[in-house]
C-alpha cells in the first residue's frame, strides 16, 4: 500500500519524459529546442506557427499545462487542459505573433514541464499596392486579383513597393509562383528602399487554358495570394466563302474561311460537313466529303494576327457536293474559344435535270445497246424516250420510243444507300435484216425527272 502511494507523484515526471514538442510546417515535424525564433515580421502582420505536443511513449500522457506569456504572442484555439494524448498521438496548438509596433519581442511557451523561449521582431516593411491591371491587396486576405483574362492572351499587373517609414527598408526576397503567373519584371531583390522611396514592377499573367488560376507573390515573409480567371475568348464570326457563287451537284469547290480582323489569339477546331437530302428516299449522300481526307470533318487552325483560317494546314479545302439535292451545312466547332456569332453556313443544292456524265451506243447483230452514266439528284428518274436515226439522218419508225424505268431506278436508289450516280444499260432488240440494222446510225435519248428534261447529244453507233 505504501509503495503504491509513493508512485502517484512520479506519474507526471514520467509523462513529461515521453512528451516531445515539435513544429509542423504542413509537411514535416521539426523538434523544438529551448528557443524558437519567429524571425522578422512586418509590423501589423501576423505569423502563426503550428506547435505540436507529441506523445512518443507507449502510454498515455496528460497535458496539464499549456500557456504563452509575453506581449505579441497568443495561443489560437488551444485544447482544454487537462488533455489526454494517446501513445503515438499529438495535440496541435498554433501560436500567433502579431504586433503593430516595431520592436523585439519574447515570450515563454510552457507545455507541461517543457519551456521554450519564443522570439520575434516586428519591423516596418514597404507597403505593397496595385497600380494598374489588377486590384488589391485585399485588406483581410491580401489577395491581388488579376480579374478576367482571355485564354491565350496576356495581361500585366503593375504593383508598387513604397517605404513609408523614416528609415531605409530592405526587401531580401521578391518571388512569384503559380502556373500562368510571371515573370516578375522591373525589380530585382534584394533591394533597399530609402525613406519615402517607391519602386514599381510588373507581373505578367498568360493563361494557357480557361480556368481559375492561383499563385503567390512573396515579399520576404509576406505572402500575397494572386488570383485570376481565364475565359474562352470570343472570335469575330468568320466568313465562309467558295471560289464560285453557283454550287450544284457533282461539283468540287474550295472552301476558305477568313476573319474580319486579325485574330486576337491563336486557336483551332474542326470544320464539319453535314448533308440533309431533299428526298426521303435516302438518308444521306456519302459523296459529300472533303477530298483531302475523304471525310466530313477537317481540322482548322489560326495564329494570332491571322485573317485567314488554315484548313488541314492549307489555305483552302476542296469538297465535293455529292449527287443529291438538299442542303450542305458547314459548321465550325471551336476548341477552347467561342465565336461571337454562329458561323455556320448552309448551301442549298437545287434539284436539277439528270446530269449526263457519259453516253455511248453500240450495235449487235440483233440489238442496240445504250449506256449512260450520270446522276439524278431528284431521285425521280425513270421516264425516257429514244429516237433512232438512220444513216441519212432520218428518224426511224416509230419515232420517239417512250420507256419508263422508274421502278428500276427507285429500286436501285434504295439499294444504293445514298448518292444518285448511276450506270444504265438499255438494250433494244431490233427486228430486221443485218443490213437494215446497220442503217441505225444514231440515237437521241431524253431523260426526264421531276426537275425537267435532259437530252444526250446524238449518240453514234460505231
Amino acid at each position, binding site marked *: 500500500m505504501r509503495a503504491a502511494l509513493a508512485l502517484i507523484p512520479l506519474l507526471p515526471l514520467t509523462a513529461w519524459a515521453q512528451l516531445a514538442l515539435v513544429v509542423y510546417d504542413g509537411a514535416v515535424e521539426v523538434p523544438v529546442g529551448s528557443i524558437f525564433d519567429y524571425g522578422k515580421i512586418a509590423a501589423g502582420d501576423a505569423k502563426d506557427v503550428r506547435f505540436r505536443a507529441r506523445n512518443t511513449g507507449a502510454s498515455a500522457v496528460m497535458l496539464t499545462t499549456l500557456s504563452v506569456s509575453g506581449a505579441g504572442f497568443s495561443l489560437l484555439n488551444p485544447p482544454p487542459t487537462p488533455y489526454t494524448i494517446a501513445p503515438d498521438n499529438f495535440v496541435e496548438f498554433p501560436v500567433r505573433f502579431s504586433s503593430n509596433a516595431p520592436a523585439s519581442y519574447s515570450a515563454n511557451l510552457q507545455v507541461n514541464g517543457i519551456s521554450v523561449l519564443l522570439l520575434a521582431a516586428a519591423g516596418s516593411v514597404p507597403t505593397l499596392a496595385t497600380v494598374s491591371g489588377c486590384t488589391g491587396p485585399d485588406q483581410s486576405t491580401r489577395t491581388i486579383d488579376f480579374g478576367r483574362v482571355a485564354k491565350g492572351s496576356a495581361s500585366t499587373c503593375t504593383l508598387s513597393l513604397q517605404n513609408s517609414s523614416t528609415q531605409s527598408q530592405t526587401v531580401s526576397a521578391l518571388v512569384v509562383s503559380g502556373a500562368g503567373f510571371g515573370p516578375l519584371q522591373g525589380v530585382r531583390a534584394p533591394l533597399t528602399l530609402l525613406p519615402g522611396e517607391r519602386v514599381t514592377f510588373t507581373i505578367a499573367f498568360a493563361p494557357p487554358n480557361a480556368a481559375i488560376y492561383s499563385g503567390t507573390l512573396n515579399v520576404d515573409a509576406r505572402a500575397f495570394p494572386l488570383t485570376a480567371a481565364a475565359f474562352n475568348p470570343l472570335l469575330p464570326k468568320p466568313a465562309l466563302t467558295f471560289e464560285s457563287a453557283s454550287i450544284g451537284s457533282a461539283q468540287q469547290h474550295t472552301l476558305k474561311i477568313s476573319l474580319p480582323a486579325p485574330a486576337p489569339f491563336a486557336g483551332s477546331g474542326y470544320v464539319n460537313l453535314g448533308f440533309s437530302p431533299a428526298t426521303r428516299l435516302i438518308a444521306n449522300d456519302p*459523296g459529300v466529303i472533303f477530298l483531302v481526307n475523304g471525310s466530313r470533318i477537317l481540322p482548322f487552325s489560326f495564329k494570332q494576327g491571322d485573317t485567314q483560317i488554315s484548313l488541314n494546314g492549307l489555305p483552302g479545302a476542296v469538297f465535293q457536293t455529292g449527287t443529291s439535292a438538299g442542303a450542305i451545312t458547314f459548321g465550325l466547332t471551336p476548341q477552347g474559344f467561342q465565336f461571337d456569332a454562329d458561323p455556320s453556313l448552309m448551301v442549298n443544292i437545287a434539284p436539277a435535270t439528270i446530269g449526263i456524265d457519259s453516253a455511248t451506243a453500240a450495235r449487235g447483230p440483233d440489238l442496240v445497246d445504250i449506256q449512260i452514266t450520270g446522276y439524278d439528284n431528284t431521285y425521280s428518274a425513270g421516264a425516257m424516250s429514244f429516237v433512232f436515226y438512220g444513216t441519212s439522218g432520218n428518224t426511224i419508225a416509230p419515232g420517239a420510243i417512250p420507256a419508263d424505268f422508274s421502278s428500276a431506278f427507285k429500286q436501285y436508289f434504295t439499294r444504293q444507300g445514298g448518292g444518285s450516280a448511276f450506270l444504265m444499260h438499255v438494250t433494244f432488240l431490233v427486228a430486221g435484216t443485218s443490213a437494215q440494222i446497220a442503217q441505225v446510225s444514231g440515237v437521241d435519248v431524253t431523260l426526264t425527272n421531276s426537275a425537267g428534261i435532259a437530252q444526250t447529244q446524238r449518240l453514234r453507233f460505231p
Partner: protein
Amino acid sequence: MKTFAFFIAIASACAQIERPGLGLMVDRDGAARPVYGIAGNATLGDAVATGALASACTRRLCLIKTESSVIGSSGQIADAPPGPALIAPPFIYFASSRQLARWHDGQLDPVDFAVDGQVLSLRVADDGGVELAVARGDGVWLVHGDGTVIDSLPAGPLMLVKRGVIFANSDGIVLRRADGTEIPFDIAGVESFFGLGDGYIGVRTADSTWAVRIETGRAFLLPEAAP
C-alpha cells in the same frame, strides 16, 4: 420520205442500272480500293487488297501488283517477281527483273523483251502488242516491244495512254494526243501517274490524288481514304 422496213422492238427494251465505277487506286496505306462515282464526284470503296504496290485497270481487267504477286480483278493470283511494276493490262513489267509478262487466264505468260533503257511506262498498241516509254542516255523514247523507236517523249514523270501521252512539266501536266493537240492541267508537284480505269488516268502529288479523263480532258480530285 424514205421509210425503213424494220423497226425497233419496243416491248423488248430493258434497263440494267448499276453503280458506276471509275477504276481502282492504291491509297497511301497501300490498300487497293475501287473508285465509284462519276467525274467530279467519286467515293472510295472498301479495300480489295492490301500491300499493293501498283494497280491499273481497263474496261475489262484490273491488275494489282503486291510485293510478290499479281492479283487479277477476277480474284486470281499469280506469283510474280518482287518489287514494283508498271501495268498496262494485260501487260505488266517487273522493274527489278526487267521482265515483261502478259496476264492470261490468271497466269503470267512471259513476253520476249529486249529493250534497252529504263522503262517508264507501257501501253497496249493498236495491234495488241506493247509499246513502251524508255529513258536512255540520249533522251526518252517511245518504242515498240522490239525496241524500235517510234517517237521522242518529254523527260520527267509520264504515262503512255491510248494514242497519247500524259506528262509533267514545270507548269503542271499536259495531255498530248497522237494528233499533236495538247491539254494542260494546273496540277503541280506531280510524283507519278497510274492507270485509274478505262479512260481515266490517276495523278499523284505529295498531298492529293487527281483523276484526268482522257476523252474530255477534265481533271478532278479523288478523295483520299478516310482515316
